[in-house]
């Protein structure tokens, strides 16, 4: 009897279909019917028209072939990229863009990590910032204006809220603007950095740099500065994409900060709106916690002080 199936093609096809549907239903169809598969973070907002246009470009250029967008809950991964990815962060992602290969770094926490200008320069010519980088140059995106009819129909297809006047303001924006806007929103529904009240100055006891004036530490700091800081703050701290470190203006306000404020900024990074000693940050800087040790950060502070002649 059982052998009959090998003589009955229709029955055979039905049996095969049944076989493949069991695993399909248990692992794919059933979960879809549960709320577990449709979570949403409280802070997550639908993409704006500019951000969605940027995401479309991310898809068009196949960025997901080299960049993942999911931080695994593994110790060194969280140290390198930041808080591990949560299911509720992706409710508006159609499709998900987690990727499967990290030829370049993960981008799940790229939003707010660098200032916009960093991304503009990097997309235009990655090799100018990382000499041997294998990332293609995307300078052409600067030359292409957004197609607003497409932007609008894409917002509609996703059922994202927008107004026609909002779309109209994008008239002169380029594809590069859109891509950078998308970069800056990725992963931002998970709060990364502590925000303190504007008026609040540090009340903790001041910590001194244990290596202040130490020649060896300054030399080490110089090397670390060249590898980690120079790209944005320029040679000898004279400033470039990032502000000058040799003058006495910090966060746009005149007046020096204490050693341990330097330490904190390098350690935790900053993002727009963050407050340091009552001064409000307008831009972003990545955190070096995890990549630089305590001694290394203090050595960099010692080097910066030496640039200021202190």
């Amino acid at each position, binding site marked *: 009897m059982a052998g009959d199936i*090998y*003589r009955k*093609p*229709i029955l*055979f*096809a039905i049996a*095969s*279909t049944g*076989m*493949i*549907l*069991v*695993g*399909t239903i248990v*692992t*794919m169809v059933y*979960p*879809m019917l549960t709320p*577990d598969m*449709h*979570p949403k973070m409280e802070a997550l907002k639908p993409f704006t028209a500019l951000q969605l246009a940027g995401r*479309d470009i991310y898809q*068009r*250029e*196949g960025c*997901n*072939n080299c960049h993942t967008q*999911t931080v*695994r809950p593994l110790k*060194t991964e969280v140290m*390198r990229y930041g808080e591990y*990815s949560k*299911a509720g*962060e*992706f*409710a508006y992602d*159609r*499709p*998900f863009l987690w990727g*499967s*290969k*990290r030829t*370049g770094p*993960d981008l799940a926490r790229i939003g707010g990590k660098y200032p916009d200008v960093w991304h503009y320069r990097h997309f235009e010519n990655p*090799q100018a910032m*990382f000499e*041997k*980088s*294998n990332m*293609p*140059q*995307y300078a052409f995106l600067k030359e292409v204006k957004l197609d607003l009819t*497409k932007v609008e*129909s*894409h917002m509609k*297809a*996703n059922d994202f809220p927008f107004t026609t006047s909002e779309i109209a303001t994008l008239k002169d924006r380029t594809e590069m603007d859109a891509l950078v806007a998308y970069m800056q929103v990725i992963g931002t529904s998970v709060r990364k950095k502590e925000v303190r009240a504007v008026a609040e100055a540090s009340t903790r006891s001041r910590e001194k740099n244990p290596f202040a004036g130490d020649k060896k530490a300054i030399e080490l700091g110089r090397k670390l500065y060249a590898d*980690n800081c120079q790209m944005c703050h320029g040679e000898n701290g004279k400033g470039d994409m990032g502000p000058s470190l040799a003058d006495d203006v910090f966060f746009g306000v005149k007046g020096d900060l204490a050693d341990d404020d330097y330490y904190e900024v390098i350690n935790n990074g900053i993002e727009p709106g963050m407050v340091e000693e009552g001064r409000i940050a307008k831009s972003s800087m990545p955190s070096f916690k*995890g990549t630089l*040790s305590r001694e290394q950060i203090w050595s960099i502070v010692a080097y910066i002080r030496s640039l200021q002649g202190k």
Partner: protein
Amino acid sequence: MSDYDYDHETVRGFVLSSVFWGVVGIVIGLWISVQMWSAGWNIAPYFTFGRLRVVHTNGLAFGLGVGAIFGISYYILMRLTKRPLLFPVLARVQLYVFNIAIALAALSLFLGMNQSLEYAELEWPLDIGVVILWVMFAVNVFGTIIKRKEEQMYISLWYVIATVVAVAVLYIVNNLSIPAGWDKSYHLFAGVNSANVEWWYGHNAVGFVFTTPILAMFYYFLPKSTGLPIYSHRLSIIAFWSLIFAYLWTGAHHLVYTPLPDWIQTLAIVFTIFLIAPSWGSVINGYYTVGNDWSKMQTNYLTKFFIWGITFYGLQTVQGPTQGLRVVSQLIHYTDWVPGHVHMGTMGWVTMTVTASMYYIIPKISKTDLYSVKIANTHFWLVLIGQLMFSITMWITGIQQGALWKAVSSDGSLKYTFYETLIRNYPYWQMRTIAGVIFTIGMLFFIYNILMTIRKGKALTASQG
């Protein structure tokens, strides 16, 4: 009915189309392998790595893979049903539609029309084309089988039937999307759900494009070319049903440590381990078939291809499940280990079996002998060396990447920046390009051999004319 009434023109058309798209896919593969270590080889906007990589994967999976599946399945189908295709004209139209679709697919990917779903990158208008092609295929497969002249359906037909139904279900569900213009769409599924649907598809596309139809070829051409019967019919029954049952549970092993609910990941890992059994059912069946007379490995050049092919299938189906384990995944996931794994399957198992099947078919339908067994042997050794060098290099790179990403200094801080871990891959990636060149030369020997065989057949027919 005489042997020569079969519609071999269409079979040959699919074989040659498959080989043509294979060359395109392989050349682009070489190109992107150079881009990995030399960014200057990117030509924006159409020929950057991000756009070319999908032309490489789609060109080979759909062009070489599906083209070969159509052609070789039709050949097997006619033999095992002892009759010509039920709808020969439909098959001929399918051949033309196939080539137009692949050409348009490549063009659309160069233009950046990309759904960003791995192995389902094609946008919705092309998806409709793929579905139409598949329906044409299904109509001929089922029609011909229903009107067959041989009552019992041989193993290869089981695998062809499973391929037809599974690919239909997988492809249609994962490509469901909300169109936003003719060149753009958004996945019907969002976030974690989108990920789960995509990898249910992605893994089983491997299962039902690179496994079941290739096993159909293996079960048909191994006994045919060696003259030895399949060792165990019972084993092939058990292996078939358990393979197609277990495969569909395993997609989430691509999503280990992602925010996908843990139970789906764990269940996938368990079934992935189980999958070793049915996979090795076919490996053992192959080995024991030739086990009656191992001298075939020396005397029959095709046996080498099939036995080494099934050996790589066996290695692949042990390595794959190992990678699914959390402890291994956390080291090698997202590294070059994974492309190393994939390429052992595609360059080892799939192309060896497919090219050997073509070596069997082309002389038969050209009514002559193979142009040169010596060239076939050269082809064999070049693709073997190229593939081994490729895969092993990528495994080493992958372990290095994973280890460097994890390395911490004595004070607990990360030892390497991402950039430092990147540039250390370049020597390996250069070696991979060399491996790819060796493999490509091997494939060129194959193509030359096939073309010369067809030419020889034509000359013979003409002289007998």
